[in-house]
């Protein structure tokens, strides 16, 4: 994903960070960056953690109390991806604290010292791995120096482990609790010069650690954004138009104001948006036009909303429809593409003269994120400052948006990041945060804005649909010699949303001598945004399914066909897909090959012909957000198109270390099922400019039945760890769909599968 969540300064030289930005040492209780005092009780990791136990600040990430409790701040927000636990584990490892002494606390958004503190792109792990290790190592070094000074010995004769510093020659020890005050007064070492642990000595990283929040979750004591309650708080619902960007002409405000419990009815004007230019950030994030109802309970606000009658100016898109989009796509597919994005060799010529040609049209629907916790935010505006409690993935642009909407300086905006009931990319947007801030300012009281499920489904930032018109050719030996795609996608300007259109270096570009990616645009007006593995979450389906078609047409084993391609990149292109960033190298075919071979072997792929009639195996691979994943799925399909998923095998290379194995496996299994869920029945359609779906009876998520066994294996490689939230998703869909083909002979070219008369 291209969303830039990290402070560019952090990446300048790769992995070393400016010490000024990152380390603050202060000693006095109550001084320095003492965040605990400003975090209300229910936002803290351990309810009841009072100022008395704040301890001594050791680096920006930790406080050590005299008792020895080490409070580690989790910098990035927790949405279920496990980062609130994994990042503190990395810091704790290098700090040398015993995990039993650790208490985790969610950091507030600090506006810079901890970076952008965003969780997305599966980037939390790769971007924080080295910085947190160095910070932890620095803290350990300071503790050792404090001990050495206390004993008047050489620091080099001391070691630190399990919350204790030991003087080697005399076996004297001092606990971290005893050393904290003195250590906190020491100058901070140069981060480029700290000594990191030998990775073979890791005691915390690589062990399964239970997120402490979960003990509260199972007894209903863990607050999510929706659970926030502050004194004097009112509740708001916000009614937006049935057609996107509809403006309020008039509303029965007086009638609503008179309803029980209602205190305010506000007509809000949406903020202006810039749609022209390459869409870098989501143009639709921010306040939209609508009417807010504020009341003394959410139920009363919601009941009042049901009597709201708004005369909308629906604007020029009130007749847009999915049927219209589909017709336009079909029209464009027949015409010459508008643009050539990439052309290698002469694909048209090669196709014309090829031994075997395969042509197919693929398409997929828009889908909605549908996090189980609907969008919400609590804000309290007072005396020119606003305090915000937000289940957000992305506080930095949130703060920017609030600053702009309220006209106050950034230092007057305090954002507490509250555990979110799912993100999946939806909470990278901060429209709910800006709504809450604006309403709070207008009413002069704290307010919680909570969306209904219907609001949530009908005002999402959708994963856009798309259409791919593919032709491929193989020579008489079954070698892929040409690949041509006319992508027809949705765009409001000259540009596609940057994750909707396939990347220029998207496989098999760089692996086939004649390649073309050409595009045409369908005009539309819907908010779109990133959803778990943006782009990849549909491109894997299209390209891996089509490759399966081509292999099948050539009479070749799909896995072997893919391996042959991967083993033979074009000369001069090197690794094929470039990708990568400062935290991890670009695509390495060798890593992908290892993962594919592993999944082939663990699934028994070679014996699949022995499966009974009606049962089949399918394969898919994808490199997504730096993770290498290959999957084999086994399904059976009956005569009525009813699918029974039986097994999934997933092999993944996400680097050398799996920081928290129990979480990693959970993520992999969840990612596979999330993808299968989307493929089976999720779609958002438009009629008369309105989203047709409204709740879970017509926006169908996978349910807990017919759940297959999912075996996950990690294939370690000698690279720093990368993220796991997104990598398992993309390749699941083609593996599932190719398995359906193997089982039934029905080739899936359209998502969701319910449109192809396939159900679970």
């Amino acid at each position, binding site marked *: 994903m291209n969303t830039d969540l990290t402070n560019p300064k952090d990446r300048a030289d790769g992995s070393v960070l400016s010490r000024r930005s990152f380390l603050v040492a202060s000693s006095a209780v109550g001084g320095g960056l003492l965040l605990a005092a400003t975090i209300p009780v229910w936002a803290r990791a351990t309810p009841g953690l009072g100022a008395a136990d704040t301890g001594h600040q050791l680096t920006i990430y930790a406080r050590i109390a005299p008792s020895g409790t080490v409070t580690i701040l989790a910098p990035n927000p927790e949405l279920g991806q496990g980062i609130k636990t994994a990042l503190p584990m990395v810091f704790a490892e290098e700090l040398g604290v015993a995990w039993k002494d650790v208490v985790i606390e969610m950091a507030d958004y600090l506006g810079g010292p901890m970076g952008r503190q965003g969780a997305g792109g599966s980037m939390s792990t790769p971007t924080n791995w080295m910085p947190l290790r160095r910070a932890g190592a620095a803290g350990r070094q300071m503790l050792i120096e404090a001990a050495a000074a206390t004993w008047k010995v050489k620091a080099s004769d001391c070691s630190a482990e399990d919350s204790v510093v030991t003087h080697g020659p005399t076996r004297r020890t001092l606990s971290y609790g005893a050393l904290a005050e003195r250590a906190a007064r020491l100058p901070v070492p140069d981060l480029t010069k700290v000594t990191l642990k030998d990775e073979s000595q890791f005691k915390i990283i690589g062990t399964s650690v239970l997120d402490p*929040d979960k003990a509260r979750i199972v007894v*209903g004591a863990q607050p999510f954004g*929706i659970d926030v309650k502050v004194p004097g708080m009112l509740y708001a619902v916000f009614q937006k138009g049935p057609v996107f960007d509809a403006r309020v002409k008039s509303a029965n405000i007086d009638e609503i104001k008179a309803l029980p419990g209602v205190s305010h009815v506000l007509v809000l004007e949406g903020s202006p948006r810039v749609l022209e230019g390459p869409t870098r950030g989501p143009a639709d994030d921010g306040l939209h036009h609508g009417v807010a109802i504020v009341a003394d309970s959410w139920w009363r606000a919601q009941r009042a909303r049901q009597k709201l009658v708004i005369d909308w100016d629906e604007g020029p898109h009130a007749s847009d429809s999915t049927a219209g989009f589909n017709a336009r796509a079909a029209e464009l597919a027949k015409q010459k593409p508008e643009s050539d994005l990439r052309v290698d060799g002469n694909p048209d010529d090669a196709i014309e003269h090829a031994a075997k040609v395969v042509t197919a049209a693929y398409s997929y629907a828009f889908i909605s994120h549908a996090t189980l916790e609907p969008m919400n935010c609590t804000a309290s505006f007072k005396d020119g400052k606003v305090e915000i409690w937000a289940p957000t993935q992305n506080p930095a642009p949130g703060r920017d948006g609030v600053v702009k909407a309220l006209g106050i300086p950034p230092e007057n905006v305090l954002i507490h990041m509250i555990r979110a*009931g*799912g*993100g999946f990319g939806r909470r990278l947007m901060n429209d709910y945060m800006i709504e809450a801030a604006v309403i709070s300012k207008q009413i002069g009281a704290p307010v919680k804005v909570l969306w209904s*499920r219907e609001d949530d489904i009908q005002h999402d930032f959708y994963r856009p649909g798309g259409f791919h018109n593919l032709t491929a050719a193989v020579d008489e030996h079954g070698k892929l010699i040409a690949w041509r795609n006319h992508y027809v996608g949705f765009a409001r300007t000259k540009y596609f949303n940057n994750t909707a259109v396939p990347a220029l270096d998207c496989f098999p570009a760089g692996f086939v001598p004649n390649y073309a990616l050409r595009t045409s645009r369908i005009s539309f007006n819907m908010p779109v945004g990133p959803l778990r593995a943006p782009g990849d979450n549909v491109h894997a389906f299209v390209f891996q399914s089509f490759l399966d078609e081509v292999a099948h047409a050539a009479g070749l084993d799909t896995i072997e066909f893919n391996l042959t391609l991967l083993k033979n990149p074009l000369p001069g292109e090197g690794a094929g897909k470039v990708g990568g960033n400062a935290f991890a190298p670009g695509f390495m075919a060798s890593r992908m090959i290892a993962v594919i071979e592993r999944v082939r072997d663990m699934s028994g792929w070679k014996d699949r012909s022995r499966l009974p009639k009606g049962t089949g195996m399918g394969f898919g691979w994808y490199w997504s957000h730096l993770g290498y994943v290959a999957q084999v799925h086994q399904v059976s399909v009956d005569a009525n198109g009813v699918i029974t998923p039986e097994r999934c095998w997933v092999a993944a290379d996400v680097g050398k270390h799996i920081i928290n194995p129990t979480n990693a496996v959970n993520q992999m299994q969840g990612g596979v099922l*999330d993808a299968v869920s989307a493929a089976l029945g999720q779609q958002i359609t438009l009629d008369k400019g309105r989203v047709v779906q409204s709740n879970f009876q017509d926006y169908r998520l996978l349910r807990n039945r*017919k759940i297959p066994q999912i075996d996950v294996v990690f294939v370690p490689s000698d690279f720093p760890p990368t993220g796991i939230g997104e990598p398992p998703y993309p390749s699941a869909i083609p593996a599932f769909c190719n398995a359906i083909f193997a089982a039934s002979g029905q080739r899936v070219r359209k998502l969701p599968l319910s449109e192809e008369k396939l159900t679970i």
Partner: protein
Amino acid sequence: MSYKFQVNGIERTVDVEGDTPLLWVLRDTLNMTGTKFGCGVAQCGACTVHVDGKPTRSCQLPVQHADGLNITTIEGVGASRIGKMVQQAWLTVDVPQCGYCQAGQIMAATALLERTRNPTETDIDNAMSGNLCRCATYVRIRAAIKQVASQLEG
């Protein structure tokens, strides 16, 4: 209007409109936020409580009908032997990801195991398919239920 009912063994009295769903009475009037809101139309199960031990979608229980009932929520289900075992299994197996649906899952699973000590795959399908998990922790939900079942057997 005033309504009175037991929540986790404690008598509670509330004064709200009779059509208010019990879900919102629990969350906003009684400040018990463990029971969650996911859809408002009994499609997701996040609002599941027990009424006399039976799993009930509290978003569709008007408080007028809760009058006089015995209600158990996620905050109190651990007082029962099986409830506590289920909560413990949820941690041992490390079921949750975001955790938002899990209160409802635990309530549904507890009711299942109270009724059927050794549920089959179909029993689990039938009892649990009304509880959505967007993170799709279904593999571990099922594993945790089976773990409790084996503990009950042993």
